[in-house]
């Protein structure tokens, strides 16, 4: 059996001189000719990248452009097939994440890596390295407190991480890396769970530490706004290749967008027709629900969606949006009334069919598909027991596959065939397949949650187009999204959800980022 990481004794104990340690200069990093292949697929093709000391460097690219592959090669999760790394000009060998940590390279992941049931104090102490015996909590606490006084932001260190807000968790992740003496920090989409204000604050602090010469930062993002405001330099990847970059000051958004998506047309604005909203199709009255831990997730939600309008629900993740969509999908018990087309709605097949109710939940592969069943079968979930596919107790495979082929064609679902298990499709194509199922018939009410999360440009344009088209045809659309830009682009009205309540409403014409952000944070 291989040696046990956890028991190695060469841990870098962090001792009292933390303040002094921070004075260590930020390093430079060169990645030269990095190549990584998975079988026949070249995920990274001779990509080079230079991080200058004390700068913030943005890594831009669409999903699947190779950003995370590059970063995982630097962090030691993957071993590059070719290429070399140099830290401060000296060759660097990294075999695993532990080596990266020893070299002072830390990464803040998109999903949090703190242990939820443990406190920040426990988490950070464990990060320092393994000591099997008794932990002197008093000494550890004193050490952490001393470290925190040198930091620009604070977090509560004695409550379990599961009780912290997303912003606090994100800060804690960054503090953890600094506490572990990382001098080069890689941030993977760090602002996706933060309010705009929190994001600005956090990036501003990181940038000030970089300018102060304490840190070198590589930030993975797809938000141009953040690149422009906080990055010194940028590298753009497309399909595993380095396609451009340079000083941010020398580039415009249009330049960067062109590099990112290549020559293909940039994101078109979905063609919305001006129309007056019709009668109320979906209404929630005083809806309350509990989350999995038994804590209130919805604390009395009232909202109305009319025919021919898109109502956007903004909010930082974890403020009840998931529970809201689950209630509408009949996946969560609730108090209060849900009315669809004026009738009480309990999510039975009968009601769904009668009211032409369509639902696109977040993570559709998990929430709206059966992964091992075929694309065709998944597309038939709403209609398999109805003619022409269903006949008595039988399902006509021929009709099922014919209809699936039609939808695959019409909705651009890229699949090896309608008989392929749906789990073999990429995220964007699963999303398209579910949308095809939900939107192919008459639609009076459509509920979508984060419909384009993690998708590339062409898929985003496609799906947004479908949603707006449904609205133009007269559907009432409830669009729950964590992406404020998406809501500002699509919604006729924007509601802000905070701590399980709707706390703010703005019409399309008057909606502004600033006040929406303040309400998302619960500060207004």
């Amino acid at each position, binding site marked *: 059996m291989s040696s046990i990481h956890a028991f190695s004794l060469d841990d870098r104990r962090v001792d009292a001189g933390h303040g002094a340690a921070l004075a260590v200069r930020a390093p430079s990093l060169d990645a030269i000719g990095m190549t990584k292949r998975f079988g026949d697929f070249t995920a990274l093709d001779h990509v080079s990248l230079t991080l200058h000391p004390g700068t913030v460097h943005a890594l831009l690219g669409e999903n699947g452009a190779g950003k995370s592959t590059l970063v995982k090669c630097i962090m030691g999760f993957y071993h590059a097939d070719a290429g070399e790394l140099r830290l401060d000009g000296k060759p660097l060998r990294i075999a695993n*994440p532990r080596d990266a940590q020893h070299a002072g390279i830390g990464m803040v992941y998109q*999903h949090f890596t*703190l242990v*939820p*049931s443990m406190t920040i104090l426990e988490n950070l102490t464990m990060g320092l390295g393994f000591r*099997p015996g008794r932990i002197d909590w008093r000494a550890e606490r004193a050490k952490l407190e001393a470290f925190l006084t040198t930091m620009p932001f604070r977090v509560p260190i004695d409550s379990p991480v599961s009780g912290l807000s997303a912003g606090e968790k994100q800060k804690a992740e960054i503090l953890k890396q600094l506490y572990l003496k990382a001098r080069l920090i890689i941030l993977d989409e760090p602002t996706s769970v933060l309010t705009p204000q929190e994001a600005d604050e956090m990036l501003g602090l990181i940038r000030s530490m970089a300018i102060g010469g304490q840190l070198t930062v590589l930030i993975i993002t797809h938000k141009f706004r953040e690149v422009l405001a906080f990055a010194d330099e940028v590298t753009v990847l497309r399909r595993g290749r380095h396609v451009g970059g340079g000083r941010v000051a020398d580039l415009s958004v249009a330049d960067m967008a062109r590099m990112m998506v290549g020559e293909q047309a940039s994101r078109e604005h979905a063609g919305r027709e001006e129309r007056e909203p019709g009668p109320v199709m979906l209404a929630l009255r005083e809806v309350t629900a509990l989350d999995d831990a*038994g804590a209130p997730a919805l604390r009395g939600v009232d909202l109305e969606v009319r025919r021919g309008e898109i109502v956007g629900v903004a909010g930082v993740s974890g403020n009840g949006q998931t529970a809201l969509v689950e209630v509408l999908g009949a996946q969560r018990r609730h108090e209060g009334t849900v009315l669809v087309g004026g009738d009480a709605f309990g999510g039975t097949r009968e009601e769904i069919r009668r009211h032409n109710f369509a639902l696109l939940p977040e993570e559709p592969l998990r929430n709206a598909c059966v992964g091992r069943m075929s694309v065709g079968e998944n597309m038939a979930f709403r209609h398999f027991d109805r003619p022409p596919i269903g006949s008595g107790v039988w399902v006509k495979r021929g009709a099922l596959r014919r209809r699936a082929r039609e939808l695959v064609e019409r909705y651009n679902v890229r699949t090896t065939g309608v008989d392929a298990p749906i789990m073999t499709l990429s995220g964007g194509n699963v999303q398209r397949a579910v949308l095809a199922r939900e939107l192919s018939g008459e639609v009076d009410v459509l509920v979508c949650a984060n419909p384009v999360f993690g998708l590339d440009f062409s898929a985003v344009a496609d799906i947004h187009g479908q949603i707006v088209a449904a609205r133009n045809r007269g559907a009432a659309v409830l669009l729950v999204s964590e992406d404020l830009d998406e809501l500002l682009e699509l919604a006729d009205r924007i509601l802000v959800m905070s701590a399980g309540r709707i706390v703010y409403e703005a019409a399309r014409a008057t909606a502004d980022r600033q006040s929406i952000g303040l309400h998302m944070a619960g500060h207004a």
Partner: protein
Amino acid sequence: MGVEALGWWGVPLAVGAGAIRVSTPFLFVSLGEVVTETAGRINLGLEGTLVMGAMSGYAISYYSGSPWLGVLAAGFVGSLLGALHAGICSLPRVNDIAVGIALLLFGTGLAFFLGTPFVAPQAPNLPSIPLGFWSHVPQLQAALKVNALFFIGVAMAPILAWVLRNTGIGLMIRMVGDNAEAARAMGYSPLQVRLWATTFGGFMAGVGGSFLSLYYPGSWSEGLSSGQGIIAVALVIFARWRPMYCLWASLLFGGAGALGPALQSVGVSQGYYLFNAAPYVLTLVIMIVACSPDRTLAGAPGELSITK
């Protein structure tokens, strides 16, 4: 007999004494399983481990003449079975529950096969500590004869609770059990930690088994265990993965298990089998009370396959 002397007071006394006697295997198995489950694995094979421990402990005690050597042997055999479970579960795409059921059948079957020669002979039993020496009531004296293993188990509960809170090993176990990805990112190896945690769980279950064959009931037979290993796994969930709660829960289940014999001793023979079923009914009732359609279990380790 003294039943007349004590009358109905004999029932709570017998239940109390029974609680201490019957609870010991529950206590050992559940404390071991708390560590295993805190590390993010569930080992349903502990019933088999328990029976193997009972058989091997009895056999070694018989051959060596030392019951304590038997206890150690039972623990060792239990560790092997625990390590086997962990080893199989370390392979990709292996489900720990399925492996557990397989090892349950394997453990009991192997114990019956190897244990046949030990059904008849009498092996030296573990001594007990007569804590009732000050009393003249024979029932009280009998009730207060407590086996040393019980005290070891009672001491283990707070020790384990302390270790899980205040030592590096304890935090590491909680870490891999709650978020394996985070543990890996910090350089801890979940598979290794789970290997040790499951091995420890097996050791404790083996020792718990030796108590059955070497003290109460005190001989080896195929009907020795009546599902204690499985009940103890349920008990861990009831105890919310806390060692101290395991202690109280074990005493509760022990008391329930002693109800039938206690009632019989005062002459209530009607519904004897019904009272004997008390622990199983209690298991069901507790599972129903503890569940909820609205919430996940508080305190459940995040990596556990049954609560994930």
